[in-house]
């Protein structure tokens, strides 16, 4: 009975009692939710549409195989931001990120992912690839055909900031690879080309989706360097009477990678389903869906014909090419403080 004469101590005791009960109730409910099979996939921005369809397909497959209902929850943000979120405790069961380097960062900075993660799945844990292409206004009014057009004085280029965006790093490396192959290969000339290219960049958005918005909706610039999958998606969304894709003579093989977050799946007891989820990326259905969402599947044979017809075959330099020597070397040489990107802007 509550009366006004309750002593402070009684009131305190009642308060503590309520608090403890609430917390126990919360924990209990949390336990109930956890008992349902859920997998959290921390991914980067351009995969939203792909995973919406892929997750449904996998849930149907898993129900068929095991009789269990599984819910896949998605979290999307910039690739680097997601890596940081996982390091700081986002309880993701799997990560599907834009750069192998971001997954390496999780492994190195938190130990949540085992060091040899790349060898656990086929093709270095990269189930689909993409590349960087140009998106221009319909009719290509500036006649942009290849990388050297991007340093012309009458051309404005839109690309995000390599310091904050994974896509921007691929863009940067693709331009570097072209300049290296076509301008004699001396570092000084290549760097000069890069400086001219970034001299034509009026603003650096923090992420690939931001740059896309600037280019398409705010109509900044003449050419956007973008993920091939994003460029194709944009044409789907905004129409071929607005935009068109130009494929340069040489680009880079971008390998978005997937990995199991070992410590999280062991804590959640989701290792089996999470492993199956990642393996499903390599199944004919997984490959077909990747192709439908404008990624390049590693097994093109599983893609629907109309999807496969979209991809232009051009030489694609890989990150492990001696020119780059893998992500760790690239990071140190180009994007770390004082790297070639900083040199372009002088310090």
């Amino acid at each position, binding site marked *: 009975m509550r009366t006004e004469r309750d002593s402070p101590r009684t009131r305190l005791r009642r308060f503590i009692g309520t608090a403890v009960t609430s917390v126990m109730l919360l924990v209990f409910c949390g336990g109930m939710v956890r008992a349902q099979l859920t997998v959290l996939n921390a991914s980067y921005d351009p995969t939203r549409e792909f995973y919406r369809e892929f997750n449904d397909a996998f849930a149907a497959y898993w129900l068929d195989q095991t009789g269990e209902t599984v819910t896949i929850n998605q979290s999307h943000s910039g690739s680097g*931001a997601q890596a*940081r979120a996982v390091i700081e405790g986002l309880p993701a069961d799997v990560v599907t990120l834009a750069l192998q380097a971001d997954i390496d960062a999780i492994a190195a900075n938190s130990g949540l992912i085992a060091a040899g993660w790349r060898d656990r799945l086929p093709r270095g844990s990269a189930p689909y690839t993409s590349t960087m292409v140009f998106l221009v206004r319909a009719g290509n009014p500036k006649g942009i055909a290849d990388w050297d057009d991007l340093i012309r004085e009458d051309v404005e280029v839109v690309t995000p900031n390599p310091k*904050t965006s994974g896509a921007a790093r691929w863009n940067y490396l693709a331009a570097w690879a072209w300049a290296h192959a076509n301008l004699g290969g001396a570092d000084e000339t290549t760097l000069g080309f890069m400086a001219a290219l970034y001299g034509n*960049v009026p*603003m650096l*958005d*923090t992420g690939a989706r931001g740059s896309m918005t600037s280019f398409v909706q*705010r109509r900044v610039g003449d050419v956007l360097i973008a993920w091939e999958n994003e460029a194709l998606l944009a044409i789907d969304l905004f129409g071929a009477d607005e935009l068109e894709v130009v494929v340069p003579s040489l680009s880079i093989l971008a390998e978005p990678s997937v990995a199991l977050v070992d410590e999280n799946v062991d804590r959640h007891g989701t290792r089996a389903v999470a492993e199956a989820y990642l393996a499903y990326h390599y199944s004919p259905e997984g490959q077909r869906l990747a192709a439908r969402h404008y990624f390049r599947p590693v097994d093109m044979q599983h893609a629907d014909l109309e999807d496969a017809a979209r991809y232009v075959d051009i030489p694609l330099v890989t990150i492990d090419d001696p020119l780059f020597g893998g992500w760790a070397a690239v990071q140190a040489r180009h994007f770390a*403080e004082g790297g070639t990107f900083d040199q372009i802007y002088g310090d």
Partner: protein
Amino acid sequence: MDSALVRRRSALPGLGLTLGFALTYLSLVVLIPLGALLVRAFGMPLADLVEVATSGRVARALLLSFGAAAGAAVINLIIGPVIAWVLVRYSFPGKRLLDAVVDLPFALPTAVAGIALASLFDRGGWFGRLLEPLGIQVAYTPAGIIVALVFIGLPFVVRTVQPVIEEVDRDVEEAAATLGAGRTQTIGRVILPILVPAALTGFVLALARGIGEYGSVIFIAGNIPNRTEIAPLLIVIKLEEFDYPGAMAIAVIMLLISFALLLAVNLLQGWARRRLGET
């Protein structure tokens, strides 16, 4: 000292309880997070901190952030009281609506504001199209940053000055007039001195807000290293590089400069209040 405060029976009831609550709350919400920041940053030697602050790029970004925030706060310091004056002293149709509009920058997600401003001011935008023939570029230049911060900071000045104007009786102006003061004299020697302390408070709030503002600025700034790169963006960049100590160092430097600025302006405000109160 605390216990002395509590034990002495105050005329106001509940001092002990409210004081305790205020201190606990302030500690939980403000002091402990800041303390954690300082502790993590002071893991690094002071020399490193100074080195980070004075490296060209960081120094330029800090200068840009503080300069643009100060510029925007000064603009608001001039425009804000005028708007407040109009809202209090005149009645016109749509006055309530206009009054509510002043608060919009508070309510709008800053990213939305940033995108809207960038679309207005870039070359294809409504304002950008008019300014371009004049050779003025606002979007993706420091001017764009100031525009965003003026937008964000305006309600701070208007809302601090408004109640003070409401307190000023018209009689005061009339009295000044009967004593032979001209309009400029009335404004300069009677009205402004009353408004200055409140306007300064608004100025400080707008300044403080502008220094740390990220969401709205990032879309209109351009983010080109050394030219339009704000200090909060550098913090984000450092975090992206997993350089936690570097990010922390910039954060602490910003914190120290901000604190020094706020303290200075507070002292100035006290001085203004005393001085203008005497005349």
